[in-house]
């Protein structure tokens, strides 16, 4: 399977948005653009997204945002516009004239105050502290602290929600290794940060620039762009800063997410439990991937411990999953999860059910899944759920989730615990958007195409592998080897077919097959009865309707071979409950008087009565 195009995720969405715009479908263009912002956002993507936005995107609340600071804040505007659009609002900006930020705050009649901002974003670097390189005396420190506090107190009145920056640290320390015993700006600024944070007037939120600087690292400021055009911080630093600003706004506005819904296979652990078994999934020491999956679990434990609800949404047999939690040593235990959806249903339906159960709106959900198709399905059906476009590599999950600040709260308890009643009232969800709300529409939007053909030398290796490894969507679980397959294929009248499925996220590869053989008695030359020997589909394409296409081709092939009836047998195993009802669903009738061994159920289909099944898959190369 080709890897999903995460790197071009935004570019692809932008291209679709431009197509829609060119066709004058403006709501559609905005929808595509919104999807693009679920991927990784950097300075370029943010600016491009902002450029696509109309002056006033319809339907979004407008909030008055003041930018107040010592450097050129205009670089931050497109990033704020783009990410606010992702968050569902639109900024109207006021930017204080260059070099006047203190006056604007202090002057009761300033343009800033006339603007009556709802949010005031303050930004200034360590340079504004005006400290000498070394030899700072304590009187100067005291003076700086008093000035900062006075300014912050003044800002606390009449400027809406004020986000006040701590100081970041200079990048040009002269004292080098002497830093520890020669008090310099770094020491002084750290001390002032600590004191300010503890004494800020209520209503002002602290922005820890020093921590942000250390998390962004060396690229926090592009010295050259600061010197040339006063861009501060750098492009990368600006995106990280805006993400933090908007997270603080969401926290204040009661919009922090509360629930993380996680997939299991290849997310909570490596591998697929239905295929690899309880002992085969990789989690914890022993394999590199196992370490990464355990780290992701540990990250979820940390979220849970600070009040985030965890839930599972996975397509699996529940018994398999229960066994993993019961018998594998993992950071997460089953009772760490507040919600539990392990079944074969549509994930959007499962999320709706979870929201009901937890009594929380879907807008407090974050959905983490490694499958692009599942993510696309949830985005289309439930636009209020946050669906980050996860990296291909599990090791990158934690930094990516952290960069989005989904669950940031202002204080640990206050917001989180006192609000469930208000949220219950909020639950009346928006009418789901027209289009793309049904599974059928979703499947249509996947733009699936299939190729199929009889087994050949070129496909034999994968056919054998699929028969050997598929446990769940496997009607008879007959593990034919290469030699048996050759024998089967060589029998007169035998029918074989492999299937390859592509969708707009890539090629899933050869993911399905069936084998049907005539029931001939020795000596007979022609038959009217055919039997399904094997019918297998990879779990990675379950729920796409491929089985319907496979069924249609099987019926056609059997008819063309002269068959009148098609027999099928369901041979239950510990893993294949998924297909227990398959044959009756397709119109097969139970065959009477043919009790098979070990709970086998036999069915028969009269080919004269069989009806072709609808599906959304185009056939052809």
């Amino acid at each position, binding site marked *: 399977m080709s890897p999903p195009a995460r790197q071009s995720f935004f570019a692809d969405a932008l291209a679709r948005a431009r197509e829609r715009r060119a066709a004058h479908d403006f709501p559609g263009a905005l929808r595509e653009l919104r999807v693009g912002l679920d991927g990784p956002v950097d300075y370029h993507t943010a600016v*491009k997204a902002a450029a696509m936005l109309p002056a006033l995107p319809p339907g979004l609340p407008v909030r008055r945002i003041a930018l107040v600071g010592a450097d050129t804040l*205009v670089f931050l505007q497109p990033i704020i516009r783009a990410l606010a659009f992702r968050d569902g609002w639109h900024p109207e900006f006021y930017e204080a004239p260059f070099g006047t930020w203190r006056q604007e705050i202090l002057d009761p009649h300033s343009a800033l105050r006339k603007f009556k901002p709802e949010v005031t974003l303050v930004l200034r670097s360590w340079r504004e502290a005006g400290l000498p390189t070394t030899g700072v005396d304590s009187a100067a420190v005291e003076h700086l602290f008093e000035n900062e506090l006075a300014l912050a107190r003044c800002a606390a009145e009449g400027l809406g929600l004020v986000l006040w920056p701590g100081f970041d640290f200079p990048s040009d320390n002269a004292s080098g290794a002497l830093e520890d015993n020669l008090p310099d700006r770094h020491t002084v600024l750290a001390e002032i940060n600590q004191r300010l944070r503890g004494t800020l007037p209520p209503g002002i939120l602290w922005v820890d620039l020093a921590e942000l600087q250390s998390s962004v690292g060396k690229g926090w400021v592009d010295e050259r*762009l600061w010197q040339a*055009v006063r861009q501060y911080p750098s492009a990368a630093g600006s995106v990280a800063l805006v993400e933090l600003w908007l997270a603080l706004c969401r926290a204040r506005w009661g919009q922090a997410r509360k629930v993380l819904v996680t997939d299991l296979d290849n997310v909570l652990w490596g591998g697929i439990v239905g295929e690899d078994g309880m002992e085969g999934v990789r989690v914890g020491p022993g394999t590199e991937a196992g370490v990464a999956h355990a780290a992701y679990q540990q990250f979820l434990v940390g979220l849970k411990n600070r009040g985030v609800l965890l839930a599972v949404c996975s397509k699996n047999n529940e018994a398999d999953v229960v066994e993993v939690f019961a018998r594998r040593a993992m950071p997460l235990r089953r009772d760490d999860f507040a919600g539990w959806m392990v079944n074969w249903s549509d994930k959007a339906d499962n999320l709706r059910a979870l929201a009901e159960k937890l009594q929380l709106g879907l807008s407090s959900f974050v959905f983490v899944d490694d499958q692009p198709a599942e993510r696309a399905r949830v985005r289309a059906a439930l636009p209020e759920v946050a669906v980050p476009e996860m990296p291909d590599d599990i090791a990158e999950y934690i930094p990516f989730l952290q960069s989005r600040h989904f669950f940031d709260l202002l204080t640990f308890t206050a917001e989180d615990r006192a609000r469930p009643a208000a949220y219950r009232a909020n639950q009346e969800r928006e009418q789901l958007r027209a289009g793309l709300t049904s599974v059928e529409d979703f499947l249509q939007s996947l733009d699936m195409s299939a190729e199929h053909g009889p087994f050949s030398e070129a496909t034999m290796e994968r056919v054998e592998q699929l028969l050997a490894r598929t446990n769940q969507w496997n009607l008879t679980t007959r593990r034919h080897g290469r030699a048996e397959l050759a024998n089967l294929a060589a029998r007169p009248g035998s029918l074989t077919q492999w299937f390859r499925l592509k969708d707009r996220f890539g090629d899933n590869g050869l993911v399905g097959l069936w084998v049907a053989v005539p029931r001939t008695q020795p000596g007979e030359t022609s038959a009217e009865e055919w039997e399904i020997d094997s019918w297998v589909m990879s779990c990675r394409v379950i729920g796409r309707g491929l089985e319907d296409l496979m069924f249609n081709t099987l019926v056609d092939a059997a008819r063309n071979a002269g068959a009148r009836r098609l027999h099928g047998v369901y041979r239950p195993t510990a893993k294949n409950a998924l297909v227990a009802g398959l044959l009756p669903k397709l119109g097969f009738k139970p065959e009477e008087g043919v009790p098979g061994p070990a709970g086998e159920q036999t069915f028969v289909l009269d080919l004269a009565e069989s009806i072709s099944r609808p599906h959304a898959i185009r056939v052809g190369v």
Partner: protein
Amino acid sequence: MNTMTQEEKIQRLGKIFQDVLDLPGLRLTENFSTADCPEWDSVATVQIVLATEDAFGVRVSVENVATLHSVREILALLP
């Protein structure tokens, strides 16, 4: 990179400009400058500099960043 003709450089810059200025139909010429295009503002300049550095593997020095006003001036900085 050194073997690129002037034409190829302009073509590659053209994609950057189309992207940054959100003008898919833009046909870039050597003479194209900030005077021709209201969308080419200081934010766009920074973006063009960063994208050009990525695309051509060059680094634009501090004195050149603020004074880039035309495609010709950018071409002069490329290897």
